[in-house]
């Protein structure tokens, strides 16, 4: 079903919706027809919305017994050929890592929303945080490819949810939608419903005998067999050969695992997404995501009004990180400022790409968003060369 067929798409063009609500609307518009979840603040509204919205479009909503099960059920539904999603927050995201790794390894498309709240552990359930940046990339054991998107507004949550499904289906990978509590529960007037085309999975076709579930050229994504279509293939979390069955043969493992780990590399242009504001002449480049990026935007205006050349680089695709775009944006910047709601996770990646000398962090961990004034003040001091 494409977005245009959705009853939700027919709703009034301008709406007042929250971030989590927009996520639910985006999922339905993208063709998501299965949601499994477990209650957790501050993501529960997504489940609540979809428990009503999915039956309206012949989809299925199920509240599972725990976070592990909801991730598992989503993968199960997707293995059945249905676009599927789950949503959670910090502690639940930790629990989902086990099966998320399975989805990555067995190449099962799915979308996982992680609304970041204060941590560690139970942390601050109702306060924003951006401390899951590294977990979203490296949370499950072993090496695996993953795509993480970080919307920064209600409208962007809607569009990025649709893009998340498109990327998940096209590249047969879990896609994480990572945004913070502040945006999740922010209500904005937005215009939705101008549906975007959502890619469909490549399904196996042709003779059963010729079908090999994981046979694909390097950089290519193998076609998936839909149960019931007669291919009767095997899916496993063990390292597998092209035929889908377990193997420990070194060359076969290297060939197949190698393809898996590099499958996104040749599509980075298609996957990468970022926003550059006033980067061309920036002396100070701010790099930020989510609520911190919104504050940075305001800070940028304040700085520019004071005659300071400050720019903003905002990755929308957080992982794989838009390396080239950042390097280009920061080409002339003397200083780079990374404001974030943690103790330096995004900064670590920026330092990796630009070197530690010109990168400074601005971190807040008290459960409050960073104020534009804080960022502006820090940017101003960097612009003036005072540490």
């Amino acid at each position, binding site marked *: 079903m494409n977005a245009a067929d959705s*009853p939700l798409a027919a709703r009034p063009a301008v709406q007042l919706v929250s971030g989590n609500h927009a996520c639910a609307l985006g999922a339905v518009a993208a063709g998501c*027809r*299965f949601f*499994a979840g477990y209650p957790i603040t501050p993501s529960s509204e997504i489940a609540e919305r979809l428990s*009503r919205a*999915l*039956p*309206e479009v*012949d989809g*299925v909503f*199920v509240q*599972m*017994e*725990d976070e*592990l*099960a*909801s991730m*598992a*059920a*989503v*993968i*199960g*539904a*997707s*293995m*059945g*050929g*249905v676009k*599927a999603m789950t949503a959670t927050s910090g502690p639940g995201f930790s629990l989902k890592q*086990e*099966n998320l790794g*399975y989805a990555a390894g067995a190449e099962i498309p799915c979308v996982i929303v992680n609304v970041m709240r204060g941590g560690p552990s139970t942390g601050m359930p109702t306060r924003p945080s951006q401390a899951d940046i590294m977990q979203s990339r490296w949370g499950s054991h072993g090496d695996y490819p993953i795509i993480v998107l970080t919307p920064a507004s209600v409208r962007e949550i809607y569009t990025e949810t649709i893009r998340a499904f498109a990327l998940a289906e096209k590249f047969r990978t879990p896609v994480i939608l990572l945004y913070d509590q502040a945006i999740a529960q922010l209500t904005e007037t937005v215009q939705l419903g101008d549906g975007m085309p959502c890619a469909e999975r490549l399904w196996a076709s042709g003779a059963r005998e010729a079908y090999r579930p994981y046979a694909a050229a390097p950089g290519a994504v193998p076609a998936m*067999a839909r*149960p*019931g*279509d*007669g*291919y*009767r*293939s*095997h*899916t*496993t*979390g*063990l390292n597998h050969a092209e035929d889908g*069955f*377990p193997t420990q043969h070194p060359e076969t493992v290297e060939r197949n695992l190698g393809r898996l780990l590099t499958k996104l590399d040749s599509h980075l242009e298609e996957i990468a997404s970022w926003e550059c504001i006033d980067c061309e002449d920036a002396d100070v480049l701010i790099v930020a995501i989510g609520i911190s990026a919104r504050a940075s935007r305001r800070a940028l205006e304040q700085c520019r009004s004071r005659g300071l050349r400050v720019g903003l680089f905002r990755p929308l695709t957080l992982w794989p990180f838009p390396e080239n775009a950042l390097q280009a944006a920061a080409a002339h910047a003397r200083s780079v400022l990374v404001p974030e709601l943690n103790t330096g996770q995004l900064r670590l990646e920026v330092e990796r790409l630009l070197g530690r000398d010109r990168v400074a962090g601005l971190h807040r961990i008290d459960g409050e968003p960073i104020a534009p004034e804080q960022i502006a003040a820090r940017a101003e001091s960097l612009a003036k060369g005072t540490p």
Partner: protein
Amino acid sequence: MIVDSAPAFDVREYLRKEMMPHFLCPGCGHGIALRALLWALHELKVDKDKLAVVSGIGCAGRLSAYIDASTFHVTHGRPLAYATGLALARPDLRVVVISGDGDCLAIGGNHLIHACRRNLKITCLMLNNEVYGMTGGQVSPTTSEMRVTTTTPLGNSEPHFDACALAAAAGAGFVGREGTRHVPKLAELMLAGLEHPGFSFIEVLSDCTEIFGRKNEMGSSSEMILRQKSELRPEAYRDTVDTPFRANELPTGVLAKNARPEYGAAYRKAAAAIKAAAAKKGRK
């Protein structure tokens, strides 16, 4: 009757022959359990293309790879959760779960009780060999008292689970138990479970000769199979009054059955009501 059609059933039609011989140890009861399942599926005339088998981790979990169907070998303890998603999303598929005692009762215990409660049409086989075989023979939730394992060197002192009582208490639509010793009975029980409209849980008492049997000096596979005869109480004798003679025997056969609504159907009914309400609202 399952016995009568025995000659027509060739197990090889349901196996991925290119994967054979399977990886199980010589004399492992799991192979016998797999035959019984395939026999029951044959009796049911299941379309292999519409059959989905989900299995967990461990010796039992590996069985799915040998079945000529759409098979999913998933994470440890989670096959029922994966199967729940699959069965809800694809009610046209017949979904069978193969799990072991550790997979199903220890790491996956929560999923088991909720699958029983939810009563979605899934058939779950728990192959109980009282041990974590693949990891080298550690104590499991079903290891009998005083049995020696690699983590209970002086004998297990933890009480063991009665998986069937657990499943029945949690509300499973169909609960049964049988040993690998009596293959036609086992296949018949599986057939009854597969035919049940709701969630069916079947505990298969299987033997691990190489690890559990050896450690406990239980003899060869044939001796372990014969041992089942003294441990299992046939269904026909379930309610005999002379309990002193059978206090330690495990009842077999169908142990619980109820007609609670199947969850998938119940959900689709509720969903239709939501859809109708939305349509009505849309018209206004």
